């Protein structure tokens, strides 16, 4: 935490080295988040790029209230949502579950069979964007429901219900993948 504060302090004083270190520290996590949300590597790269350029433009006046990772993750989530709105109809119709191995005995075994994280990404892609967003932010980026609610500008109850419905849907997708 102190390390973060020092980095931000140096960044605010125009240290490019501090900016580079911040980027190096969080780039993979943020790109992973953007890829999970958008399922498009080049779009995800654009989102991370835009977030860092905006962040760099705030040098000198940037004020950190929470964690740097939380702040940057929120920025990525917000930008990804905007990009997702612009994208028309690309999310629909992904039948990844059909491509999954159907020889597994139970839902979790089936899921365990999906070794690649890419498969999970495709499973998540079958969820509505809002549910996917909450699940990814909570489970992959350790953001609390309250933080997510603040970042998305919705109530904590909305976030919790999106999360619950998302998990239910994910479970039913996994179950249907097994029974088929």
């Amino acid at each position, binding site marked *: 935490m102190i390390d973060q504060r020092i980095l931000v302090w140096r960044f605010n004083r*125009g240290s*490019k080295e501090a*900016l*580079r270190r911040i*980027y190096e520290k969080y*780039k*993979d996590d943020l*790109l*992973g988040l953007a*890829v*999970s949300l958008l399922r498009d*590597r080049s779009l*995800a*790269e654009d989102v*991370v*790029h835009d977030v*860092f*350029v*905006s*962040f*760099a*433009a*705030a*040098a*000198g*006046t940037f004020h950190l209230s929470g964690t740097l990772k939380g702040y940057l993750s929120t920025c990525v989530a917000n930008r990804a949502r905007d990009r997702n709105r612009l994208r028309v109809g690309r999310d629909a119709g992904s039948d990844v579950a059909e491509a999954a191995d159907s020889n597994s005995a*139970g*839902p*979790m075994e089936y*899921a*365990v069979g*999906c070794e690649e*994280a*890419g*498969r*999970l*990404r495709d499973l*998540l892609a079958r969820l509505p964007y809002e549910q996917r967003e909450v*699940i990814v932010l909570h*489970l*992959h980026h350790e953001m609390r429901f309250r933080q997510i609610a603040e970042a998305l500008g919705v109530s904590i109850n909305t976030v919790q219900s999106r999360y*619950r419905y998302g*998990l239910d849907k*994910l*479970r039913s997708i*996994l*179950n249907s993948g097994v029974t088929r």
Partner: protein
Amino acid sequence: MKPAEDIEKFVRRRKPHVKTGRPMDKRVLDDSFAAMDQTLRASKPRPRRIILRSRAARLAVAAAAVIVVAIGLFMANQGSREQRPQMVGVVKSPAEMLTVMSLNIAYRRGGIEAVDEQSNKAFQMLGSKPAKASIQELLSELNGV
């Protein structure tokens, strides 16, 4: 159906480990540095801006202004006090010292001795005091009385 915790565990374990490529790193860092430079150049701190932005600096400037004004007032006051005795002690010209009004004032202040003293001073300055001139003669001569 598995409990929700299993699904959570399943999702958590399969967090995608995506790595950025070198071209992306270069693009992001180059553009970020450029944006940072532009911002910092645009908002180069000027003394006036620092004062306006910082509360402590504003207080310091206000305090300094108050101190300067106070010192100015004090010095002006001291100056006027020092000037007053000088005003009293301003050397009048001999002619002024011997006018009716001036001598009248001297009389009121210290009687005939004061008038005598003032006239003596005037003549000393002129360097032409008659050895046996009386005050009455002097007055009549100077003021035509």
